[in-house]
C-alpha cells in the first residue's frame, strides 16, 4: 500500500514519467485477475494491456489532485474487471457455454519466472488446474469477489471499492465462493463424475444448490 501511495504521488507529478513503474508493478496482478476471470490467456493479455492503457489515458486527463488520491490497487482492478465483463458478454453473445475440457487447458499457466510457483510438483499443478477450472464455474459476481480477495489478495474493503458493492456483500460472496469451490473440487476429483460427465456449464451450480 505504501508503495502505491508513493507511486500515485509520482504519477501526479508526471503521468508519462511514472507510468512504466505502474506497468512493472501491476501487470502481473492485472493479468492474473483477467486470466482467472476469463480462463483464456489471449483474452487475459488483451484485457490486462487494455486496462493499463485506459488507466494511463484516464490519469493523463485527471487533475493532479485526483491522480495523487488514487488507490491504484483497487482502481486498476476495477478497470480490469469491467473490461473482462464486457469481453465475457461479447463471448456469451456469439458462443455456446464453454465445455469443461478446454477451460481446464486454458486456465492453467505455469509461472514463467518461478516467483508464484516455487514447487511445480504434478500434484500442485493438478490442483491449480482444477481450481482454475472450478473458478470459471462460479457465478461472475462470486468469481470476481474470490479472485480479487484471494488470487489478487486485496482486502475486503479494497474488493468492495473495486466492485462497488458493500463490504458485507463481499464477505458473503467470498464465503460462498470458497464453499462452492471446495464442493466443485471434491466433485471433480471423484473418478465417476470427473471429466466424462461434467456438470452442465450453463447451470454450473445446480448440483451445489441441491447439496445445500
Amino acid at each position, binding site marked *: 500500500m505504501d508503495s502505491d501511495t508513493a507511486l500515485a504521488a509520482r504519477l501526479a507529478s508526471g503521468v*508519462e514519467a511514472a*507510468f*512504466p513503474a505502474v*506497468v*512493472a508493478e501491476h*501487470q*502481473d*496482478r*492485472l*493479468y*492474473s485477475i483477467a*486470466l*482467472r476471470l476469463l480462463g483464456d*490467456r489471449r483474452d487475459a*493479455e488483451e484485457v*490486462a*494491456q487494455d486496462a*493499463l*492503457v485506459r488507466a*494511463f*489515458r484516464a490519469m493523463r486527463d485527471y487533475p493532479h489532485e485526483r491522480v495523487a488520491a488514487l488507490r491504484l490497487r483497487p482502481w486498476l482492478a476495477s478497470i480490469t474487471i469491467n473490461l473482462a465483463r464486457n469481453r465475457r458478454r461479447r463471448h456469451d453473445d456469439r458462443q455456446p457455454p464453454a465445455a469443461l475440457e478446454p477451460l481446464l487447458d486454458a486456465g492453467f*499457466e*505455469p*509461472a*514463467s*519466472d518461478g*516467483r*508464484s*510457483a516455487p514447487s511445480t510438483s504434478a*500434484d*500442485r499443478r*493438478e*490442483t*491449480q488446474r*482444477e*481450481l*482454475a477450472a472450478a*473458478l470459471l464455474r462460479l457465478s461472475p459476481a462470486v468469481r470476481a469477489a*474470490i479472485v480479487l480477495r*484471494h*488470487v*489478487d*489478495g486485496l482486502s475486503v474493503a479494497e474488493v468492495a471499492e473495486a466492485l462497488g458493492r458493500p463490504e458485507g456483500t463481499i464477505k458473503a460472496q467470498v464465503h460462498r465462493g*470458497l464453499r462452492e*469451490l*471446495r464442493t466443485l*473440487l*471434491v466433485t*471433480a*476429483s471423484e*473418478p465417476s463424475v*470427473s471429466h466424462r460427465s461434467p456438470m452442465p456449464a450453463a447451470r454450473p451450480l445446480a448440483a451445489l444448490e441441491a447439496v445445500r
Partner: protein
Amino acid sequence: MTTAATIPFTDQALEAALRDLRVAAPPSVGFGALVEAGLADCYAAIETPLGAAFVAWNGRGVSWVSPAGDRRTFEDRFREAVGRDIAPAEELPARLRRAIARRLSGERRVRIPLDLRGHTPFEVAVWTKALEIPRGEVRPYGWIAAEIGRPRAVRAVGTALAHNPVPLVVPCHRVVRSDGMIGQYSMGGPDAKRRVLASEGLDTRWLEAEAAAGKRFTGSDTTHIFCHPTCRDARRVTDRHRVSFPNLRAAAAAGYRPCKHCRPVALAAA
C-alpha cells in the same frame, strides 16, 4: 489422477491454492501498454520501392522509417535517437500497413498518424509541407521555405528534410536542390532518391537534363501560365507550345502568370 491429498479442504489450504493462481504476465502485456501509451515503440519490416524498410510506431503514430538491416543496430540507433525502448513485432497493425501502402502508391488523402514528438515546429512545418507535393512531382528546397513563410531558411529546410524520421511516409525525396539537381537523400543518397522518384513515374534523367540546361520553369504559350517542370499542368503542355524560363524574373518579364497548383510565385521572395 488427483489424489485426495491435493484437494485443499481447509480454508487456509484453499486460500493458499488460490494465491498460487497468480501468474506472471507475458512480456507483451506491459510492453504493449507502453507502446499504446506512446512510451515505447514496436517495429516491423515493410516492402517499399527502395526494398525492405523498418517502420517503427506507437499508439501516437509512425515514429521512424529506415532501410531494413541488422536489427540490433537499428534498435540501438532508435533508442539513442528517440530515447524510447523498441522491440520487434511480427507485422504492422493492419490499418497502418494498408494506409502506408496506399500512401506509397500515391494516394494523398490517406491519413497516417505520425509521432513527431521531440522535433521542432520548424521541422514539423517542413515535413507537413512536403506531404503536399504530389507523387511523381518535385519542388525545390526554396519552395518549401517560401511556402512555410521562412523564405530565407532554404539551408535549414535542407537540414530538416535530411532529419526526416519517416522518409517515404513523408516524401522528402520529392524535394530537390533549388538548381533543379536531385540533391541528397537520407534513405541512401542521390541514387536511392532517383530510384524512388523513378518508381513514382518521374524521368529523373530528363529532370536533371532540364536543370543542367537552365530550364527551371515551364510555361505554355497558349495559356501564358508557368509551372515547376514536374507539375502535372506543365507536363500536359505539348512540345510545340512549351517554353522554358531560367528564373522567375524571365517568366514574369514574358508576361506569364504562375500556376495555382504548383505555386512557383512564392519563390520570388527568396
